[in-house]
Every structure is written in C-alpha cells, then in structure tokens.
C-alpha cells in the first residue's frame, strides 16, 4: 500500500484533541471569568451629577440609611431622597459650596437631580425592598459596604445565583431587624462565636418571621 499521508499524520488526532482541549478550556475560562455578572456588573461606578459621599454621610457621621431612603421599609423601591431632604442640613452646612449648586437648584425649582441608577435588576425580575428589609436582610447583603464608598459602585454580582444563594439558605443571611441598616454589625468579633449565633438565631428568625424565601420561578419572574 502506497502511503498517501506521511507518518507524522498519525499524531494529528492527538494534536487536534490537545488543541480542542486548550482552546475549549481557554474559551470556557474566559466566559466564566469575563462574561458573567461577577465581572460585567461588579465595579460599575457611573459619574453622578453631585459627588455625594456615602462614606462621609453614612460612615463618618453615621446617618441611618433610612434617613434618606425612607421608603425602603414600606415600598418595593428604595427611594432616592428629594433635594429638600439634603437641604435639611445643607441650608446651614456648606450652604454656598459650589459642589452643592445642583442640589440647591433642585430644591428651589423642584426639578429632580438626575442621579444615575447604579443597581438595577432586569425588567423581568420583580424585587421588593420592604419584604427583605423587614425580614432582617441587611442592606449590606446586596449593596456591600456603602458606608465605606466615596461614590456608590456596584459591589455584588446581582446574578440570579446571587439571589438564589440567599433564597436557598436564608438562615445564613438574616439578622435582627434593628441591625438591618448597621452595615458593620456582627454577632461577635470572634468568628466562631458569630457563626454559631448566626446558625442558631438565623434558623429561629426564619421560623418566627415566617421567612418563605420562595424559589419558584414566579416569585421573581411574575
């Protein structure tokens, strides 16, 4: 038999398999690292019309989240405050600062400040702030340490598995309702003690507060 192909072609299938494995591995890893919400959403930090610092207001001065986002316990939406809320203080503090010109204009004319929304779930997802906040899900669970952010950025992935991680195991994530807006709160500075108290109390809260943490499709995709 005259050989049409030289002998090295015997190694072609192996080489081809190796190429497919490498290319496939790189593509898979690339998609997993760079095309998932962990990468595409986390770190999003748009430029806001007013350089409002949560670090100063919520962190340094210790304003409660609900001072400004006052609808969060009653509404599906954690509202943004009107400029009049800002003016409660800023009619006396830094009252002529040029950085606050937009706020003063807004308060005078009633035209809202054009804040850029940072955290957003898709249109096909229903999310209700009040039901989470009143059942002991802290702001920090989804928004991260906003009290340490100069300007707000997207800290968590907000992927569907991010929601489901908590819905599948709520006891690990809920705390006394009084501590919901205390972003740095913990059961104990001792990690082992904290974990144990979380386990005991979390289960109790789930039972006492009738936390359903629904996992059916229509819980969120209504």
């Amino acid at each position, binding site marked *: 038999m005259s050989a049409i192909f030289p002998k090295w072609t015997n190694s072609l299938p192996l080489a081809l398999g190796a190429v497919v494995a490498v290319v496939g591995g790189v593509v898979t890893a690339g998609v997993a690292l760079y095309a998932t919400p962990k990468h595409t959403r986390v770190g999003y930090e748009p430029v806001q019309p007013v350089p409002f610092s949560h670090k100063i207001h919520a962190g340094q001065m210790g304003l409660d989240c609900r001072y400004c986002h006052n609808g969060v316990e009653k509404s599906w939406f954690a509202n943004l405050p009107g400029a009049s809320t800002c003016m409660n203080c800023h009619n006396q503090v830094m009252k002529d600062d040029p950085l606050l010109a937009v706020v003063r204009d807004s308060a005078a004319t009633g035209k809202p400040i054009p804040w850029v929304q940072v955290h957003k779930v898709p249109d096909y997802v229903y999310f209700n702030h009040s039901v989470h906040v009143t059942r002991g899900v802290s702001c920090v669970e989804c928004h991260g340490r906003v009290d340490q952010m100069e300007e707000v950025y997207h800290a968590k*992935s907000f992927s569907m598995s991010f929601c489901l991680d908590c819905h599948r195991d709520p006891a690990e994530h809920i705390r006394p309702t009084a501590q919901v807006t205390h972003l740095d709160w913990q059961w104990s500075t001792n990690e082992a003690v904290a974990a144990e108290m979380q386990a005991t109390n979390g289960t109790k809260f789930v039972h006492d507060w009738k936390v359903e943490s629904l996992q059916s499709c229509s819980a969120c995709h209504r």
Partner: protein
Amino acid sequence: MADASTNLKSLLPPVELRRQPVVENNQGLGWLTDKLSAFAEGKIPLWWWFFFLPSAFCATVILPFCLFYQVTTGVGVWGNNHPVMWGLDIVNFIWWVGVAHAGTLISALLFLTRQHWRTTIGRMAEAMTVFSVMMAGLYPAIHVGRAWFDWFMFPVPNSNGLWPQFRSPLMWDVFAVNTYVMVSMLFWFMGMIPDFAVLRDRATTRVRKAIFSALAMGWTGSASQWHHYEKAYVVLCGLCTLLVFTVSSIVGLDFCTAQLAGWHATIFPLYFVIGAVFCGFGMVLVILIPLRKWCGLQDIITMSHIDKVAKLALVSGLIIDYIYAMEFFIAWYSGDPYERWVFGHRLFGHTYGVLGWMLIGLNVVMTQFLWLKKVRSSLLALFIIGVLINIGMWTERFVIVVGSLYQDFLPANWGHYKPTIWDVGIYVGSLGTFAMLYLLFVKFLPMIAISEVKGATPQGNPHHPLGGAKGGRH
C-alpha cells in the same frame, strides 16, 4: 463410501428448511468487492439526480427559510396554542426517532443474535438511523421557542444558579437522544472503516485516495486490527441495543408522567419502543426496495432478506395491535370517565375521528396482509405497505399527541389544533434533508458492509475450497 455419503445427506434438513445463502448465485469474494464498491465508484446515474435535486432544494432552501422565520418570529407561527401546546413539532420528533430505531435494531440486535442476513442491509439501516436521529434532534431544539437558550437543557454551571430538572423525563430525553446520536454515528462510522480501506485501495485518483485514506484511519486489515475492531463492534452493538429500548421508552415517559387521559398509561414506554421499531421497519422497506433495484443489488439484498424484514414488520405490527387493544380495554376497564371519553372520541369524535380510523386501517388491517407469502414476495406490495405503515405511524403520533390534548378534563379548556404552513414546511424540509443525506450516503460511501457480507458467504470461511487467502481474487 457411497452408503456413508447417503447417510450423511439424509442427516441434512430438507431443502426448504436449509438456511438460505446470504448472497445468491454463489458469487465469489472478488465479485462481491467489485459489485459492492461499484456504485460508490461509478458515474452518477440519472435517477439519483432526479431525487437529489428536489430533496436538496428542501434541505437548503425550504428548511433554512422556515427555520429562520420560525426562530426569528417565535413558535407562534406554528399552530400550537392553548390547549394543544405539543403539535406537529413533537409528532414529527417522535416519528423521526421511531424511524431511527429499526436501523439500530437490525444492525445491533441482529448482530448479537448472529443473524448473518443482517450484513447486507445493516449499513443502509444504520445510515437511516443516523440521519433520522439528526432530523429528530432538530425538533426539540426549535420547539423550545428561543433556540439560543438551548444550552439551558444541558447541565452547564451558570450564573443563574440553575440546573435542569433531573427528575423530569424531558431531561432524560435530552441525554437519551444525544447519547443515541453519538453512539449510532460512532457505530456507523466504525463499521465503515474496513470498507473505506477497500475504497482507498481501489481508488484511481489521488484526491479520492486521500479522502478515503483519511477516513480509513490507517486500516490495514491486520489480524490485531480486526481483533480490536471486532471487540469494539460487539461493545457498541450492546450499547446500541440498549439505546433502542431506552430512547423511545423515555419519549414514552414524557407522555405517561403527565396526568392527561390518553397519556397516563403504564404501557406507554413499551408502546413507543414497539411503535418506533414498527415504523422503522416500514421505512427500511421503503428505502431498500427501490435502491436494491436501481443499484443492481438483487443478488445481495435477496428476496429472502426482504421477506425477513417484512416478517419483523409483521411481528412488531402484531404487538402494536395488542397494545391498541389494551389501550381501549384499559380505558373501558378502568371505569375512568375521562379515559373512556378520550378513547371513545378517538374513533367516534367528529374532530379527529377520521385519523383514528385511519390508524386502525393502516396499522392494524394493512399489516395483516404481511401474513401472506404472496404479499411478502411482491416488491410492489411491500413498498406500498411500507409507505402506509409510515403514514399510519405518523397518524398514530398525531392522534396520541393532539387527540389527547385538545379536549381534556374541563370543557371550558377545550380547543382545536390545525398545523400551519410553517409546521408543514419544516416537516417537508426535514424529509428533504433526510433524503438528501441518504442519497449522498448511497452515492459516495460504501452502502453495503463489504467486509461483513464477505464474511457471511461460504467463500469467507477459510475451510472453503475457494475461501480465505487460497482462492485469491475469485
């Protein structure tokens, strides 16, 4: 000596009971090689173009056009709507899976039971399996509506934190059909390797030689290669035989786990397996009879082989008849008013009653003609029965799927189903694609397992006076 030979002769069974030779007219090995390679090597005949052009048109124009319109617009272009959410898409899926099954049964199960006559038709049946499973696989992929989310059907880790529902037979279906596609392709390809080597060695042009060299993967026909090859072949046969039973039973389970009257029956897995095999034997008859004549294979695919396929069709048809009888009997015997109502309406309802009777007429009545030797020896009659079996089995799937869905427990929920032009277009397109692929296979690949047929002839036996290496190219 004379006495001894008479005694020996008297021990042989009478002529009519002796095993028929696989190849008629005592043809030798050389003749077989020439004959079986001839079609793949010769000029393309006119009849081939006559069938190829229209089927290629269906495959490359009608099917892509319908698919494009359906995928970009949505499943709403089909007739499927509440309450008939499974329409022609699922009917055709089951039908194509069914067609596939006889091929596997012939090539795998008959191999395990050492039926030598399968060697002549096995390859053609396997090709039928491969192409029809491909057609079947098309339907679930587009039936989901958003074809770009098909990957949701597979257990891929994802940022949605979701997995498919492993407890659902629909999920098992995904695994079963995909396994079936892969194993039957592998089986088909592996079976062809020695024949690719034959075509390679006979090749006259360099291009042809290069193509078949690549396909033959360095086959030399050495004893150690045959040793490995035959081991692998048996393993794949075992796998394929199991798959015949798993794939269609899971399709059956898709139905019988639902609570719908007309679907909710324990007989469904068996029902679908046998229905699939029955339908497939019909298709084997439809494909074999014309090709045997046009490709001049009368000595190889003998009347005795056709007769055996017809007998297998009859056997599976009789089991189908039993299952039909059981379905009606159980519906009555259960006393369930919904079951009784559904089965009563299969035959006496005004909407799809005609189809119910068509089913009985084609699958039950027509099959009984296969009892007659006269019918089994008439190629025309067998061809017509083969076509009718396929129509009948398509009707059966329609009656099961649509006939049970359109009128369920609540009269307020009743509806109607009529396929649209897009339903029909995709079906026609898939038929054309199947035909196109099959014609390409027939023309360019070894459509009969050359090495296997030679092994099944008396000359293939090394002890035969002209057998083995002694006879040379005889």
